């Protein structure tokens, strides 16, 4: 254990923002900790993404935000592969936020891989071509006689020239035509396909200040922004003087709200909610000063916005018809011919994001306008939204990306960036705004809930011939809310010849948005659980039942494109389904009483996933997932197996966590406020997750999200297998399981 050993610690911040720690320990003869790697010299740029030092060091710029999905490692891996440098020689930095140089910069939709797989390799290949040309010029040979390896150009005789010696000449050459570049075949890869640890690993294990919340600038002060818990409610009164009198507080002031632009989406163009800013020398003191504020808000309009009222409204809407939305074949006729009909109502709640790093942002007024450091998934949107809301031009606002302590879709919205910017402008000095956890829950853009009434017709052979859906979602100001779509990338419309979707909407004031695998994370539950009911009604095994319906479609695929514009390939799904059955021992193993296995598939974010969950349910309804098997098809190569595996495990465990969560609303405000009231998956409830990738001949696709949707229905279906209890309402609580057992017994 730590004793009072003598230690000498030197900590310094480099110009580049990378923390360098030299550590000298006089610790009872124990070896001193290794000296940490330093940032290399700036190097000579070869384009916007690559700089090479005379010493051969390679600096690569990662263009997209890092939220834990591994972009800051994977994007440079793609460049480094084609640049042909040793991965150990690479030092990675975030790129500047600049659409002109770096194109779209965002983290969302599991789009990093599909959008960057080709362009980032081209970036590396272009820089390599310049180095080869420079060497050819120097050696007076044709470039085609040269090859490259690990940061060297090598001529026909085997003579090696390090990139560092060529970069100055290479930088003077015109950039090559993209069409002239030949990319490596997969068989030649030295970096891609090999597990690589995250590039910030060393900094993370030493506690370096990488995250948004860690941002330091000269003269920084700290701020909280107190808002009405009912979104957008104006301030009636507040005791600004009392808050100002609290220790450590320097400034207290109210800010008028700025309405979002009329046609703007509430989340993406948030405006500025009215509130009171408290600014001072440390965050704890300014946060404590809230108590003295005694703020009153004109929030009566929240009264009708209540989880109970929404539920009653949904039930009423489901008695009638919805607005026609999608339709294939003739559902009514098919239902008339069905041997049996199954009807069920499914209900999914609102849930929060809860990034572990609460929302925060540092802003500093400059001569030009504003400089901002933010943990954000959409830095370019943030720049635009700050400018739009505060009446600046976008080029007056500079945004720097900081590592994000989780994203999950929350940081697509840049509301906290606008708040920090407005406060910094008001106090005319640098400010770090940090939300308390209570702020973070209350002012989330929640995953909206939904309620579905499903009706299916099965023929005498056990084939589903009709699938009728009436879904209730939410609107805000008459428009469908963000994240509230009910479109079906779920399977039934791809598998059933007669299908209809009708939609109804409940007006809400609750801000909503996209939570990891948005839309799919409720629709998978609704449709894959109902599909399980249909298998049971047809007297068939759930895996065999799904496979039969898929195989029937092998030669007559439905032409409706999937949500990301890609057609759903039923053969790819059938393959992962069969494989997960084999890997999990589906149908073979005898399960002890109270233990069940459930299966589900889902296609989202271009990925095909099939999952099996083994769940134990106690006599009192308490449940735990014991093991999960995952098979995914994300194309021809898993670019970083370490990161890919982590994303799949993380998504599956996130889904298991979501199964227990619900945010309820009373009088327009969120009832739960912190981690003591929102159940979060912890170590003791996290099962082993067996991950297998089924490689197919398709371009690689993203992995942050597609493994999440199937786990939710797989667990619920496993509870049915274990107990006979069909739970159709989330969260999956012991009480609901017990109630469903009783219903079944009755």
């Amino acid at each position: 254990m730590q004793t009072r050993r003598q230690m000498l610690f030197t900590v310094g911040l480099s110009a580049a923002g990378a923390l360098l720690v030299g550590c000298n320990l006089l610790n009872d003869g124990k070896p001193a900790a290794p000296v940490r790697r330093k940032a290399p010299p700036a190097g000579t740029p070869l384009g916007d993404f690559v700089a090479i030092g005379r010493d051969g060091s390679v600096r690569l710029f990662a263009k997209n935000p890092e939220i834990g999905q591994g972009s800051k490692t994977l994007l440079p891996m793609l460049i480094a592969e084609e640049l042909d440098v040793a991965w150990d020689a690479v030092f990675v930095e975030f790129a500047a936020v600049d659409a002109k140089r770096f194109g779209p910069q965002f983290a969302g939709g599991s789009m990093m891989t599909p959008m960057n797989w080709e362009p980032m390799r081209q970036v590396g290949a272009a820089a390599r071509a310049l180095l080869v040309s420079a060497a050819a010029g120097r050696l007076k040979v044709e470039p085609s006689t040269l090859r490259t390896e690990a940061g060297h150009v090598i001529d026909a005789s085997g003579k090696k020239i390090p990139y560092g010696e060529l970069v100055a000449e290479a930088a003077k050459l015109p950039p090559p035509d993209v069409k002239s570049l030949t990319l490596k075949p997969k068989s030649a890869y030295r970096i891609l396909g090999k597990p690589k640890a995250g590039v910030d690993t060393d900094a993370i294990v030493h506690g370096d200040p990488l995250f948004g919340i860690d941002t330091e600038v000269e003269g920084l002060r700290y701020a909280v922004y107190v808002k009405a818990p009912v979104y957008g409610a104006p301030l009636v009164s507040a005791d600004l003087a009392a808050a100002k009198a609290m220790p450590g507080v320097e400034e207290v002031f109210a800010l008028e709200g700025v309405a979002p632009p009329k046609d703007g989406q509430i989340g993406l163009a948030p405006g500025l909610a009215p509130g009171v800013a408290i600014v001072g020398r440390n965050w704890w003191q300014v946060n404590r000063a809230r108590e003295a504020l005694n703020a009153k808000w004109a929030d009566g309009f929240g009264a009708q916005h209540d989880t109970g009222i929404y539920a009653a409204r949904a039930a009423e809407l489901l008695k009638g018809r919805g607005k026609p939305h999608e339709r294939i074949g003739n559902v009514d006729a098919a239902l008339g011919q069905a041997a049996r009909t199954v009807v069920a109502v499914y209900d999914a709640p609102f849930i929060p994001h809860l990034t572990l790093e609460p929302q925060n942002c540092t802003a500093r007024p400059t001569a030009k306008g504003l400089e901002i450091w933010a943990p954000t998934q959409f830095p370019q949107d943030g720049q635009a939204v700050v400018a739009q809301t505060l009446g600046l031009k976008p080029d007056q606002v500079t945004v720097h990306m900081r590592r994000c302590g989780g994203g999950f879709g929350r940081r697509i919205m840049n509301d906290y960036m606008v708040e920090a910017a407005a406060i910094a402008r008001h106090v005319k000095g640098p400010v770090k705004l940090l939300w308390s956890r209570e702020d973070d829950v209350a002012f989330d853009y929640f995953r909206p809930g939904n309620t579905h009434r499903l009706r299916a017709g099965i023929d005498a052979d056990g084939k589903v011939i009709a699938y009728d859906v009436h879904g209730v979602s939410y609107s805000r100001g008459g428009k469908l809310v963000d994240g509230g779509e009910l479109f079906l990338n779920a399977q039934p419309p791809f598998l059933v010849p007669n299908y209809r979707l009708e939609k109804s909407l409940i007006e809400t004031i609750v801000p909503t948005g996209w939570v990891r695998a948005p839309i799919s994370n409720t629709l998978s539950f609704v449709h894959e659980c109902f599909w399980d009911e249909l298998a049971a009604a047809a007297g068939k095994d759930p895996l065999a039942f799904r496979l039969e319906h898929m195989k029937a479609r092998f030669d007559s695929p439905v032409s409706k494109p999937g949500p990301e514009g890609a057609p759903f390939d039923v053969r790819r799904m059938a393959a992962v389904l069969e494989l997960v059955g084999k890997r999990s021992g589906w149908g073979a193993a005898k399960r002890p009483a109270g233990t069940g296995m459930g299966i589900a598939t889902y296609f989202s974010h271009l990925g095909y996933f099939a999952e099996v969950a083994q769940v134990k349910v106690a006599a009192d309804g308490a449940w735990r997932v014991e093991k999960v098997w995952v098979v995914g098809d994300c194309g021809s190569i898993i670019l970083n197996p370490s990161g890919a595996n982590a994303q799949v495990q993380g998504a599956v465990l996130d889904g298991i966590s979501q199964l227990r969560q619900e945010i309820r609303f009373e009088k327009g405000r969120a009832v739960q406020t912190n981690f003591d009231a929102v159940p979060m998956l912890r170590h003791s409830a996290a099962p082993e997750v067996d991950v297998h990738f089924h490689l197919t001949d398709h371009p690689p696709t993203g992995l942050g999200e597609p493994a999440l949707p199937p786990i939710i229905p797989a667990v619920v279906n496993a509870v049915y297998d274990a107990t006979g209890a069909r739970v159709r309402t989330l969260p999956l609580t012991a009480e609901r399981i017990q109630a469903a057992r009783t219903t079944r017994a009755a």
Partner: protein
Amino acid sequence: MVKLLVNGTLREVDVPGEMPLLWVLRDEIGLKGTKFGCGIAQCGACTVHVGGQPVRSCSTPVSSVGDKPVVTIEGLSALEPGSAIQEAWAKLDVAQCGYCQAGQMMSAAGLLAATPKPSDAEILAAMDGNLCRCATYPRIRAAIRLAAGLDSDGREG
């Protein structure tokens, strides 16, 4: 004035005694490695060692520290299992976003200092107060076993 011994260095800070150690470390001393997640001892992101014991610094008034030495993630290398934990974390590429990991590693260091060869159940008991929103739990457990010399294959689960 409050005197604190942090990572072997004596610090004097002018703060109220009830101010939580977390905010003294972050905003007064400038050690940003210790993280804020909830402020109510529910997530473990703020875990540091005080007098050799892992504590939640968000709920530890600075006045209660006294002359007990404080060790944060920035000082982890100097602790007995510290470097082994850092190496295991790096080798198994544990971090996703990385935000919880300082707290996870400080809890793991407390566990291994008290129980050098923990059972799986002891690992769960010691670590259950540390949330990982990215759910890196299987790798954290594997890294603890690796650091303890219990497992070299990186078995996750």
